[in-house]
């Protein structure tokens, strides 16, 4: 198959657009949820204004982590200098797939982190006295739900940097096979992290809520949160395994 460098550029630019476009959807929704709950909380407890404002800002910043990952990947795709003709179809497929992986992979974690932050704001408004404990738990919960986004980022970086150039003189069937398998790797980690990301966010949100209500049971609640989040993450790990197999073993 003839290949000119334009095809690789097309793939890179498409991937960049998909990455930041999809990644921005739920990042926006998540930050919006947090801000909404924060504003509602200020209405309920005007004297806890400072604390609520701080929780809201930190929560929003943490909820946007996955969106920032998507931005980084799309900047790398545009300016990283991957567009050289020796890359071949492998490189084109890998670039498109990197964008897909990070873009879809940012959907779940940001939604989860948004829900968690929203519950934290609600909880702080109810119990301003325990604001620091709630905020600490919110940060840990959001970091847990961003773990799946980190998996997507890792696969995306591997697709950018560890796919070799296409060797000369390959049969067309082989080229097709390898390229499609790279796209499959991006899809599997992207779609596979939506569920765990959102689910862990739900766990963290409930934990924030309950720490506000029953601050005495804090260590027990946090332990259950860790355990539940770790088990919910296992399907994201199966996706990571399949993605590694598709990149390295095919």
């Amino acid at each position: 198959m003839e290949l000119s460098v334009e095809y690789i550029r097309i793939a890179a630019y498409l991937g960049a657009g998909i990455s930041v476009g999809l990644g921005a959807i739920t990042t926006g929704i998540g930050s919006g949820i947090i801000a909404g709950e924060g504003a509602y909380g200020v209405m309920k407890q005007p004297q806890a204004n400072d604390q609520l404002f701080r929780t809201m800002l930190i929560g929003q910043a943490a909820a946007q982590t996955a969106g920032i990952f998507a931005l980084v990947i799309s900047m790398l795709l545009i300016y990283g200098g991957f567009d050289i003709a020796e890359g071949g179809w492998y490189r084109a497929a890998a670039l498109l797939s990197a964008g897909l992986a990070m873009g879809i992979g940012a959907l779940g974690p940001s939604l989860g982190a948004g829900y968690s932050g929203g519950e934290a704001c609600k909880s702080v408004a109810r119990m301003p006295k325990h604001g620091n404990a709630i905020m600490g738990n919110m940060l840990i919960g959001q970091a847990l739900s961003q773990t799946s986004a980190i998996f997507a980022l890792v696969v995306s970086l591997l697709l950018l940097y560890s796919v070799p150039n296409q060797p000369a003189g390959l049969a067309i069937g082989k080229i097709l096979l390898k390229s499609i398998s790279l796209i499959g790797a991006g899809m599997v980690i992207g779609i596979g992290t939506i569920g765990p990301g959102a689910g862990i966010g739900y766990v963290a949100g409930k934990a924030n809520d309950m720490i506000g209500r029953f601050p005495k049971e804090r260590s027990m609640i946090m332990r259950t949160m860790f355990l539940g989040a770790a088990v919910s993450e296992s399907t994201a790990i199966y996706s990571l395994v399949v993605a590694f197999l598709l990149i390295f073993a095919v």
Partner: protein
Amino acid sequence: MAKKKSPILKIFILFILIETALVFVSNGFNKELQVGFDEGKFVFRNIQSHYDLQDRITEEFQIDEHYRQTGETPVIYGSNKTYEFFKNIFGKVSAIGTFQLLRMLLIVDIMLLFLAFLIKKKLLKRPSQPQILFEMIYSTLEQFVIETLGKDKVNFTPYIVTLFLFIWVSNMVGMIPIPGFMEPTRNLNVPLGLGVFVVAIVHITAFKVKGAWGHLQNYLNPVKNPLFLLDIIGELSKVVSISFRLFGNVLGGAIIILVVSSLVSYVVFPVGLNLFFGMFVGTIQAFVFTMLALTYIGVEISE
């Protein structure tokens, strides 16, 4: 009265200072970052080009394959003689990945033994700071064991504490910025071995508690459990999920640190990223691994 700084804060600040200095000295100035225009396009990357990075990532992943393909002589930090000795035993060049892994495992073991002796030598009535830390770890985990397994199974505590300390120190040892240092848990064989061991211990305990047939009929008796085949697959997937969770998190951190450091020329970010992935993620993953092992045992013996 001036407020005293807490010792943890002191350690934290000291760590950041030392790490920054070491990172600067080791690779700060020998990489050049190119920000600007190249053939009419805006670029930011290392002048040595990202194929350097690509080589390094292949090296991280398939180190034996890397040296077999390129035919270079492997770079061994430290003594070459031990590697020669090791190679003579196994008889091939491709043993370098195993060699590095074994060396790091040895270092972790020596660190743990050293800590143990150091603390044992100075056991005090009014405990010192490290003693408080380790007593806290031990008593917390012991409390968890009692809550999950009951008072009569408290003899599981040493296993659980050893598991936690080993994984914890292994995850943190990669933060030391010495060339050739890596987390042993970054190699799939270590988490997989730990995971297989955990599931084996779960079943051995279940055999002891419920008797051979009492346990095996969950998996072999189609009348009692019609989905027994899926349960066997489920047991295997326990090994996969518990070990790949640790492996994926540690390896992910390593790859992100590698790529980001090469983009920003090894200057600013790696310290913060090391703190996040080494201390925060490393501690959480060690805790999660131990708690999962504990609850697997608890679920199996309590039915």
